[in-house]
């Protein structure tokens, strides 16, 4: 079973994403901020990360760059409600940038593709 690390400070997002991805057959580990996300990235060795950007403390782009320095082979999807973070060239370290929406199709497709599970 593939393991997703979800880093997002909003509890409601954590609940909805967990339900969505567990139903699809993934194991979901969550973290509520960047520091916790980095700890779990090292301890849990996830197969993929879904990472919010606008969070208290360390923002998602800083977390992304630290994660990629630790292990650049683990795909990281930036998942934000805002488009404007795309102006930050640090986001280039990500494997995809998906704007949050009620429709999970795009996010799920990207998770599948990055894990080589498409089709």
């Amino acid at each position: 079973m593939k393991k997703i690390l979800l880093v997002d400070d909003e509890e409601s997002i954590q609940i909805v994403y967990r339900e969505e991805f567990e139903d699809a057959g993934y194991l979901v580990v969550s973290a509520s901020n960047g520091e916790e996300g980095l700890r779990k990235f090292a301890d849990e060795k996830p197969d993929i990360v879904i990472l919010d950007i606008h969070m208290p403390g360390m923002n998602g782009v800083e977390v992304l760059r630290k994660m990629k320095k630790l292990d650049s082979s683990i795909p990281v999807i930036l998942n934000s409600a805002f488009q404007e973070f795309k102006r930050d060239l640090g986001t280039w370290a990500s494997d995809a940038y998906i704007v949050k929406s009620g429709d999970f199709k795009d996010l799920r497709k990207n998770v599948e593709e990055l894990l080589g599970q498409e089709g």
Partner: protein
Amino acid sequence: MPELRKDPVLGRWIIISKERGKRPTDFPVQHYQAANGFCPLCPGNESSTPPEVLAYREGTAADQPGWQVRVVPNKFPALIIEGELSKEGVGLYDRMNGIGAHEVIIESPNHDESFADIPPERMSLVFKAYRERILDLEKDSRFKYVMVFKNHGEAAGASLEHSHSQLIALPILPRMIVSELSGAKSYYKYKERCIFCDIVRQEMQLDERVVCQNEQFITIMPFAPRTPFEMWVLPKNHSSSFSMQNDEDLFSLAQIFSESLRRLDACIPNVPYNFVLHTVPLRAGGIKHYHYHFEIVPKLTSIAGFEWGSGFYINTMPPEEATVYLRESLDNRKSGEKDEENIAG
């Protein structure tokens, strides 16, 4: 007593409101926090960027390390290259789809090397990259202008510490360029001379706002600068199109550009700044009334309600005074280093 000054090209007014005794180091500078982490622009991480459209490298394959300057499309572009231009009117309003090209010029393979620290030999490759990309994008009839710009430092909009500049090819002429072209044309109609050539000539005669110069290029502080330490770098001889400059010109430009930035950095260490290339529209060729130049604008003041509302800028450092600081800056640094050596010795 504050003084109002008018920019002769744009007709824009600024207020020089000198603060007595203010020195360059008194300006609050937001120091850049170099983030530790993976850098998508560093050699070895080429797979984090879209495939390169241009690189200066010796003997290595595309999208591999071994480059000096590398140009890649923006991974998350502000405008999209694919598609036909489609314009429409919505009542009295106009709109069009977001067609354009958005590219990033990675100026150095060294993560910690600032643009000011790049030696002129390599800096001229950055200018060469600008020229080559403008010439290539000029072939695309959808585009009317290529805007080349750099943000240095977080306060100036740079999001990544690895030195880079950007270009955006636009399907419309930016309003600033239209105003400059129009102001320069009016002056030419009246006097039959290029206003920028006249500015260069007058500044050389006065020698009050000349920061540095060589045979071909000059850096001046404009008469009506928007911010303290604003500098313009211009060719001394009339030249309207940056893309018509040859390699020799670009090396000469790099020498003066590099010296100007090093002087600024010596005066106000790590100052955030933007620079923008002002050149003719695509396919305009050489024109008599316009003169290409770079504008270097340090980020030392904030834009607030008065500036937004009036279009005026308030500048607390007269350019004549700032010029003295810039002229002395490298000499002071050198003598400071000598003093330290003497003390150490």
